[in-house]
């Protein structure tokens, strides 16, 4: 198919008129600077209630213990809020920080911003890792982080202009909040000329985030080949909802033109050496390995299907005969090929694929021609197979609208799958959904639900609150049994699951349910190691993996790094190393670039220690907000084993075999219900044992509380942290 990738509906015709309607509220000058050794040593604080703009110093202690990115976000949030704070209280803080490594242009995957806020879904801090140029460009204006506190009266934008040395807060009444338009407009409003467009990046949400609690943020960059803004999402945990609650329409950064040495690293040759080596590795191996450059993460669809791991019909089943309609071949053909698709400079992995020329078929933008950013695997599985939908163009439609409305595709997919199962089982019906026939595979109804969520209308208002609140509402209305809703509602801590089946991998059940922020696989993805390769057979082995990998992956978030170039391409000889799952050569690369930028010499052991302080601190933060205990780490049974007869029967052979070989029960003569009950007891018991082993390995009590020795060991035994923990330990 040949699609003109430069052709799309133009939204910038009235850009001058829109800019002229802005009302300046505050203008504060600042001295633009560039980082030294990866840090500017200052951050920016904006209070939208008082309209005060202040600078804060980034201290050596912050750099030593919290490093940057997610660490800075958690530290600032801790200081901004109280234990009683709710997500929509004025003091809730949105913190964006790229970390010291972020913004280098040589090592693939170095442009991530980490966003931290108090989540409306979980009541504990959420952290989200997002591409786009905002974080690095903000750093090149002179700030290691930005905090947004307070609430504005009317819709505002915050501008950081590092070319002019000025911060402005402006009321911006005319621009659409929807991201595919907002990003385009604000980029054109603040760029000096065409060549300057790529020095602007916009953070925005959309009208959906105004009504739903599953709102996301979009971070933009200007794609010079397509001639349009592209979007990446800080998807998880409802950050977009907090953003719109504060009446922020957009954050805009306008930075000086980027060069390759703007972090002022200690040793640029050392970074360039490993950067070029990885570019070459991707050049040589990607075609033979993951095809990230052509398909992005969507290459995973049929692999997951083949291993019975692709969530279908609300995680009931792991494969589907129609998968061929949404598998990698389809996306390979639909994505525009041959143009750079990195979400930051220097990412030769280029997974940020775009489907150009999508003609919108529903909702407010019906008839427009747009570029859809994605779908990535999570969207294809969440909005697709998990809802029984196997239609390429409807998936593009869902992807487009989720993004532009500021709705997280992962939560939307998982919550719609839950709604569809409730519909299948009569917990919901047409009257209760306002006439929507939410049966498996009904893509048009899925989109209509999305539009209603975005408008905050009828059943859409309920669905947009996420699974945890829906379960409560459905049971209070007497529509369904709470215990069953708890079994099939795929959330832990209030956050919807991302799109992998964990039923046959105990380690991954822990990877999801033990994650600090809720069940997102960016803490640990252990399914192949555990289920396929059986490399971590004992509870202790699994606990070790659930110590190492969450900490290793936390480190990406401290530094502004993307996880994908770590193991979505591997050195040709990786399998021959002693620990292939860790990709030792790439771990060494990370030590090299961190040291080459900051001058702080680290090795692979120190790397884990750096993460551990922040990780333990985040656990205590959860406790401080009233969660973070054993009971909060328990997964819904749907993620652990078969809830229903259909699920059991779909894998009867496997489950019967397990009864015999693992549980030593003869399945002959037993009813399916009996067999389900035996499995459940065995599996839930195993999960409890896993928790014991993991807590022990992490230095926590049996209740999941970090001990004082643990906090001390990782130097996060600040008096106010110790206070929280003491309170809980003394209660035991």
């Amino acid at each position: 198919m040949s699609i003109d990738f430069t052709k799309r509906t133009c939204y910038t015709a009235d850009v001058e008129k829109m800019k002229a309607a802005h009302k300046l509220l505050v203008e504060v000058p600042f001295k633009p600077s560039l980082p030294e050794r990866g840090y500017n040593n200052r951050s920016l604080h904006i209070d939208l209630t008082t309209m005060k703009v202040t600078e804060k110093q980034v201290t050596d202690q912050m750099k030593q213990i919290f490093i940057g990115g997610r660490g800075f976000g958690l530290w600032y949030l801790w200081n901004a809020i109280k234990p009683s704070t709710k997500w929509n209280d004025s003091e809730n803080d949105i913190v964006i920080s790229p970390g010291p490594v972020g913004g280098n242009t040589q090592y693939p995957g170095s442009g991530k911003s980490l966003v931290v806020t108090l989540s409306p879904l979980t009541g504990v801090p959420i952290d989200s890792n997002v591409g786009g140029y905002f974080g690095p460009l903000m750093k090149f204006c002179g700030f290691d982080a930005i905090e947004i506190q307070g609430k504005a009266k009317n819709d505002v934008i915050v501008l950081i202009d590092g070319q002019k040395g000025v911060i402005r807060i402006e009321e911006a009444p005319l621009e659409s909040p929807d991201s595919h338009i907002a990003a385009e407009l604000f980029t054109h409003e603040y760029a000096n000329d065409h060549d300057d467009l790529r020095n602007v990046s916009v953070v925005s949400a959309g009208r959906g985030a105004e009504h739903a609690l599953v709102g996301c943020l979009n971070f933009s960059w200007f794609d010079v080949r397509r001639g349009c803004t592209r979007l990446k999402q800080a998807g998880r945990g409802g950050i977009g909802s907090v953003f719109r609650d504060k009446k922020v329409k957009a954050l805009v950064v306008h930075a000086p033109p980027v060069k390759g040495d703007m972090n002022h690293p200690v040793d640029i040759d050392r970074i360039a050496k490993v950067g070029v080596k990885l570019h070459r590795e991707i050049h040589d191996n990607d075609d033979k390995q993951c095809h990230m450059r052509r398909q992005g993460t969507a290459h995973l669809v049929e692999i997951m299907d083949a291993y019975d791991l692709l969530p279908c019909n609300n995680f009931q089943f792991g494969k589907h005969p129609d998968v061929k309609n949404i598998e990698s071949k389809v996306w390979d053909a639909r994505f525009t090929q041959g143009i750079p698709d990195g979400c930051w400079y220097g990412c030769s992995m280029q997974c940020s694929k775009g489907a150009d020329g999508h003609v919108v078929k529903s909702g407010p933008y019906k008839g427009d021609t747009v570029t859809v950013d994605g779908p990535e695997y999570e969207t294809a599985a969440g909005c697709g197979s998990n809802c029984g939908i196997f239609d390429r163009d409807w998936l593009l439609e869902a992807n487009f609208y989720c993004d532009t409305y500021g709705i997280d595709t992962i939560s939307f997919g998982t919550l719609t799958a839950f709604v569809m199962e409730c519909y299948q089982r009569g917990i919901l019906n047409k009257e209760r959904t306002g006439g929507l026939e939410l049966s498996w595979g009904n893509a048009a109804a899925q989109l209509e639900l999305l539009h209603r969520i975005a408008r905050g209308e009828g059943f859409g208002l309920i669905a947009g609150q996420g699974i945890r609140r829906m379960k409560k509402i459905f049971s209070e209305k007497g529509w369904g049994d709470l215990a069953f809703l708890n079994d099939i509602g795929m959330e832990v801590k209030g956050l919807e699951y991302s799109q992998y089946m964990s039923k046959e991998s105990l380690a991954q059940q822990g990877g999801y349910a033990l994650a600090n922020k809720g069940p997102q696989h960016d803490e640990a993805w252990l399914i192949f190691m555990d289920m396929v390769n059986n490399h971590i057979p004992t509870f202790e082995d699994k606990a070790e993996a659930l110590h190492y990998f969450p900490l290793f992956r936390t480190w990406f978030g401290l530094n502004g790094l993307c996880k994908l170039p770590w193991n979505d391409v591997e050195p040709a000889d990786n399998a021959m190393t002693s620990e292939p799952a860790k990709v030792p050569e790439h771990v060494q690369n990370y030590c090299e670039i961190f040291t080459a930028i900051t001058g702080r010499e680290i090795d692979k052991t120190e790397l884990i220690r750096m993460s551990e302080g922040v990780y333990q601190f985040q656990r205590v933060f959860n406790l401080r907000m009233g969660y973070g205990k054993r009971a909060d780490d328990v997964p819904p049974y749907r993620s652990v084993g078969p809830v229903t007869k259909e699920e059991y029967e779909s894998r009867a052979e496997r489950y019967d075999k397990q009864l015999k070989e693992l549980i030593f029960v003869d399945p002959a003569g037993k009813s399916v219900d009996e067999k389900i009950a035996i499995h459940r007891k065995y599996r839930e018991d195993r999960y409890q044992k896993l928790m014991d082993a993991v807590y022990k390995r992490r230095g926590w009590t049996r209740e999941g509380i970090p001990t004082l020795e643990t906090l001390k060991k990782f130097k996060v035994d600040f008096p106010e942290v110790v206070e929280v923990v003491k309170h809980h330990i003394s209660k035991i």
Partner: protein
Amino acid sequence: MKFLKTDTSACSGARACEKACAMTFFKKEDSAYSCILHQKASGKSDLNVCNQCGACIEVCPVKALSRNKLGVVMVDKKTCIGCFMCVGFCPTVSMRRAPGSREPFKCVSCGACVKACPSKALSLSEKDHAGLPC
């Protein structure tokens, strides 16, 4: 398209080309600063230099690479953001990075090495480079 044609059978391994190139652009003699490199592969001389195929043009995220009027692929240093993806993705590994530098460098078909070569192993050719995408 103007490109540097190499005749490895004539090459005596004097490495005069490397010195001439490094001197022209960096005022240094070190081959780390030369666009053309003499390498020995299984005992034979091999000359590695850009053939102006143009593959790197597509790789650049900011359109800093383009052909000039003569068809020579040039790096626009003002636009370049120093990612070195072009270095990693050149099919013949002929795009290079010099120590300490922020941008890559490559052969621009200037001919300094042609004059320096004692064995007449190098020449500038104007002909189309058959088989290569341009």
